[in-house]
């Protein structure tokens, strides 16, 4: 029972992480495309400024929760995906320092170096997280000792890459919409137009991915067994359509929320299909890491559940407050603020 609750929480933590960091990873990737001059670039940085760090903690927590609640899954996954995860780590590091470093030396060359770092540091995590999760959906070559029989290239199979492309597109739309919410004038128009242009591509990739999932994975098994689960992909599809409806109405806030829901329910779709497995083995289903053979002790799960039930709502409360309090538009005037990025 506790294992099941933690499996759900595990899915929720990843979903919230993708929903939040998704927009700043997407927006970081689009930085050179959406901005035409220095002050527009600064508006983009400052639109993420007070939020990105708090967003990234959801990744740390998702990782930490995996470590605590499913130590075996943590060990197998991080050992097995060694190169991919270190690449992700380097990307996140370089991206994290961009915000602080970029504006500290007054030179266009210096800034363009960090702009490039921002693009790479945003694009790579989006891609790698998609590739990693798609690989988990289709099963990793894990042997009976939990050892990964493959390398970085094993992950770059067609389905894995499809997952990467899907994540990148989800985040690009999400990031464009965030900028449309946070900016005005020409920049806002450009951001909105970008979302509008990307949405049909996202739709096509999403449909292809869904079809591919039917062939390449057994995620649908749970759905045929428990039909009520179909609600999850249904909400994802409705949210994706809703995103487009709101984009057409130029209702950017609603479009962003719709896009956030899409990301959350796409994540849930995969996670619900995985249950009760955290890391399915493609070699032999007996080698899979599941909530039964991968979980922590009952006492740890219990204590962690108490901590999560008390603290996560508190975190959500103050982060929501921050989003509301600092959610206004970033304008040229805000760039004059001496602490602005």
């Amino acid at each position, binding site marked *: 029972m506790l294992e099941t609750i933690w499996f759900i929480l595990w899915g929720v933590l990843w979903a919230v992480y993708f929903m939040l960091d998704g927009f700043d990873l997407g927006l970081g990737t689009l930085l050179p495309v959406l901005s035409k001059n220095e002050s527009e670039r600064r508006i983009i940085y400052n639109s993420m*400024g*007070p*939020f*990105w*760090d*708090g967003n990234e*903690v959801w990744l*740390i*927590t998702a*990782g*930490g*929760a995996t*470590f*605590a*609640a499913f*130590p*075996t899954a*943590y*060990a*197998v*996954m*991080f*050992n097995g995906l*060694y*190169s991919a*995860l*270190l690449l992700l*780590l*380097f990307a*996140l*590091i370089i991206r*994290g*320092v961009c*915000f*602080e*470093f970029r504006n*500290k*030396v007054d030179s266009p060359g210096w800034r363009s170096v960090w702009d490039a770092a921002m693009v790479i540091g945003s694009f790579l995590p989006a891609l790698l997280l998609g590739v990693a999760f798609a690989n988990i959906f289709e099963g990793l070559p894990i042997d009976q000792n*939990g*050892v990964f029989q493959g390398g970085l290239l094993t992950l770059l199979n067609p389905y894995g890459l499809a997952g990467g492309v899907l994540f990148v597109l989800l985040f690009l739309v999400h990031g464009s919409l965030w900028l449309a919410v946070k900016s005005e004038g020409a920049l806002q128009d450009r951001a909105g137009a970008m979302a509008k242009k990307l949405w049909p591509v996202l739709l096509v990739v999403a449909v292809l991915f869904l079809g591919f999932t039917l062939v390449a994975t057994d995620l649908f098994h749970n759905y045929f067994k428990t039909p009520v689960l179909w609600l999850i992909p249904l909400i994802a599809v409705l949210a994706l359509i809703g995103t487009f409806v709101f984009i057409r109405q130029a209702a950017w806030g609603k479009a962003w929320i719709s896009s956030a829901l899409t990301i959350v329910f796409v994540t849930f779709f995969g996670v619900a299909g995985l249950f009760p497995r955290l890391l399915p083995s493609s070699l032999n289903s007996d080698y899979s890491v599941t909530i039964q053979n991968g979980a*922590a*002790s009952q*006492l*740890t799960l219990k*204590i*962690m559940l108490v*901590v*999560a039930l008390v*603290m*996560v709502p508190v*975190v959500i409360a*103050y*982060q929501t407050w*921050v989003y509301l*309090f*600092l959610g206004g538009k970033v304008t040229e005037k805000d760039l004059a*603020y*001496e*602490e*602005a990025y």
Partner: protein
Amino acid sequence: MDVLMLSRLQFAVATMFHFLFVPLTLGLSILTAIYETMYVKTGDEDYRRAAKFWGKLFLINFALGVVTGITLEFQFGTNWSRYSKYVGDIFGSLLAIEATLAFYLESTFIGVWLFTWNKVKPKTHALFIWLVAIASNISALWILIANGWMQNPVGYTLRNGRAELADFWAVITNPFAVLEFLHTVSGAYILAGFFVMGVCAYHLLRKNEVQFFKKSFNVAVTFALIFALFEAFNGHLHGAEVAKTQPAKLAAMESHWETASNVPMYLLQIPDPANERNSVQAIPIPGMLSILAHHDSSATVKGLKDFPISERPPVMTTFWSFRLMVGLGFLFILIAGLGWLKRREIENQSGLLKLFIYAIPLPYLASELGWAVAEVGRQPWIVYGLMKTADAVSILDVSQVATSLAAFVVFYSMLGIIDFYLLAKYARKGPVH
């Protein structure tokens, strides 16, 4: 080199680099909060500028502290997966609690603090930096409870082929962890105090913004002195706890070879591990090691020879790191004490001011040495008495770890140079009018 050695090196690089930034984060967040509180209390504009100036340096430093911390969480899984599997039930939960309890708070409110100087009342704004300061110190508490458990594992039971949590209360009240926390954060406060005093000294020597920097200096020197004194006291207690829980580490710290009672401490000592003796051993203080270790001059202190060779930590590293750290600790009391006595006319003490500039790197050195004692001195164990480091390492190819280690060295060197360059640049620039 094999995967074990490369992974150990990589962890050493990642941890020591991370700890170039952590102590300043822990201490300077508090000092910045103190300055801003003084502004709220007195209305003195200099303190508002101080909060902004030191806050800016804090942020430059903070950026690298945060991102290099993620590396450590990753490493336990990537390079020490057998460790993660074996003790994740306890160790993993402590890291997860750290994230939910402290890391969110710190990372969320650092952004809020930065962006709301003009948006909220001064009192509220000061509250934000206090939240950051408190959260980063709570972070340190949970991380050190986790490390304390590796040093002195308590509250666990061996079941299902791993260490499982049996008594959560015992884990979080582990005396080793509590002392390690006090020792580490006090060291961090000393470091931050010396950092601020050094930067103040640089400007005071140039007669730049004398009033401003005197005010900053006075707070920092009191702060540093209090914690330098406290560090000697809690360091002693910490050492006694090591004697109780990790006798092999204590013997290596003191290069103490023969089990004996009423053991003296030698002020001058050079270990000779190959011959299991000390090549130089002079100026004894009778019974001192027995007193320090067990609060009793006749107490027996177990020597290295009574531990199997396979369970002895590397003596040279442990011994010299410890000696140098302790020496520096006393030096900090002396320098901070001098600064405190002369604080009213510090701007005229050019010799002392120069000393303060050169003293900036010393607490950094002391902090790194302290970790060398803690971690090298625990070898060959990853969890003392429970799991050997050699049994903890992941199953990887040498080429994978060699590549990542090389990448870490290159990448971290670049980032480190940039960060310290920016710190120096903005420290020299001084406060904004």
